[in-house]
């Protein structure tokens, strides 16, 4: 079931005008921001399907950039996010793509600064709900609406066990988990949706675990 809570239906409280094109888009932007962990210096957004056709009318551009500035769906600052980005000297570009995608409301967001970059694909599935379907080339399925931990690790035995045992020790329950890799024995990605927010202490411990290369978290 994609929708688990009554508040996915009666909610979110948001700035209009479109839950798919504004709230869902803001959530995709905010997921990218959370994963990047800091304010990017440049933003490239590629829009597909209905997003590409109607983004100006719905304020999808404003919403995605608002999310990248770490605004929530109900934050009234969303409506002036493009001006804010300009003042902060963040370079923002939008690209309307013709390519067909599985979902009509798809955005590919590439962000970065001098120290690194990130590429993420998100879809807005209706009612303000969003899913992350791709991160730095890894396929995944992540609803941006639960706290989640993302770990890049070496594709070796014991990597997953070392992570889950740390979570068990801290009494953190796993709601949904996925592992994907581009190639056997190389870098792999672990996505773990949890029920409660995870402390930084736990993240530090996860970073030191066997075969773990990088850790990031998404907060509800």
């Amino acid at each position, binding site marked *: 079931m994609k*929708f688990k809570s009554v508040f996915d239906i009666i909610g979110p409280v948001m700035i209009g*005008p479109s*839950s798919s094109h504004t709230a869902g888009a803001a959530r995709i932007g905010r997921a990218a921001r959370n994963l990047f962990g800091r304010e990017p210096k440049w933003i490239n957004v590629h829009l597909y399907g209905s997003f590409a056709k109607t983004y100006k009318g719905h304020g999808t551009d404003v919403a995605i950039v608002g999310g990248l500035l770490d605004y929530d769906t109900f934050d009234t600052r969303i*409506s002036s996010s493009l001006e804010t980005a300009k003042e902060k000297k963040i370079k923002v570009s939008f690209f309307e793509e013709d390519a067909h995608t599985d979902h009509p409301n798809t955005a590919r967001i590439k962000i970065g600064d001098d120290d690194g970059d990130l590429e993420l694909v998100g879809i807005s599935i*209706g009612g303000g709900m969003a899913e992350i379907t791709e991160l730095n080339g890894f396929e995944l399925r992540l609803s941006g609406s639960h706290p989640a931990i993302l770990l890049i690790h070496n594709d070796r035995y014991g990597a997953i066990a070392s992570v889950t045992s740390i979570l068990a020790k801290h009494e953190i329950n796993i709601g949904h988990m996925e592992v994907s890799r581009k190639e056997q024995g190389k870098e792999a990605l672990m996505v773990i949706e949890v029920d409660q927010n995870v402390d930084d202490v736990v993240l530090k411990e996860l970073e030191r675990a066997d075969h773990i290369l990088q850790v990031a978290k998404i907060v509800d």
Partner: protein
Amino acid sequence: MFRNVAELVELAESEGIQISEVMIRQEMEVRERTREEVVGQMERNLDVMEKAVEDGLKGVKSHSGLTGGDAVLIQKYMQEKEPLSGNLLMDAVSKAVATNEVNAAMGTICATPTAGSAGCVPGTLFAVKNKLNPTREQMVRYLFTSGAFGFVVANNASISGAAGGCQAEVGSAAGMAAAAIVEMAGGTPSQSAEAMAITLKNMLGLVCDPVAGLVEVPCVKRNAMGASNAVVAADMALAGVTSRIPCDEVIDAMYKIGQTMPVALRETAQGGLAATPTGRELEAKVYGISLKKE
């Protein structure tokens, strides 16, 4: 956990509780939250809806200038004349319009189930309220009942205009509202399901064709008609009228219709009203250019 309307009604009737209570208990279980937390969050959503209706009735205007002010016109008409369709119906219509006008003006709203269809549930609620005099708790329950039916649609079909057309948005919203009206008026859980079925049946095939891609034309007026559809269907269900096609099958039909709907009619501003001469003219006026791709 209920997966469809049949299970939802069965759960409520076997335990002798309301649909809203089934939804509250499920939410507490799934999210591991207390009743106070769950009900409290819904109360805050109710506050947002009430504020949006108030703002809309004072009169708002969207940035594009395409919508705004109609809620005020209808309320004024109601004060000066006796509406042919009745005060309650026109009150629901004006409050649904008020909510969507606030949404179009980039004001704060609560998506029910989406922003484009945010008018039907609060519009009917704040109109029926004047007739049934519910407690604040019963008003919060109205939202849980709406949410329970929306939950089934979202998981078994779609609530996205881009995926399923306007039938998935305003159609779902109107059905949710109809079911909630029935519960507030003292109807049974199965009468709620009949009201949802009757409403949604009459919204099947409704396309999503917003002019200039904006959630304004015809979205605001579709919420008006969705709200009135909900009130009429609720009355029919309360009278004992049933749907020959069960609610779950209507939802499934809606889903399948959405899947076969052309892309031009699913929130791309390429067909329907968006592609009419006046639709294109308005679009050019809003952007200075046309969204039409050669």
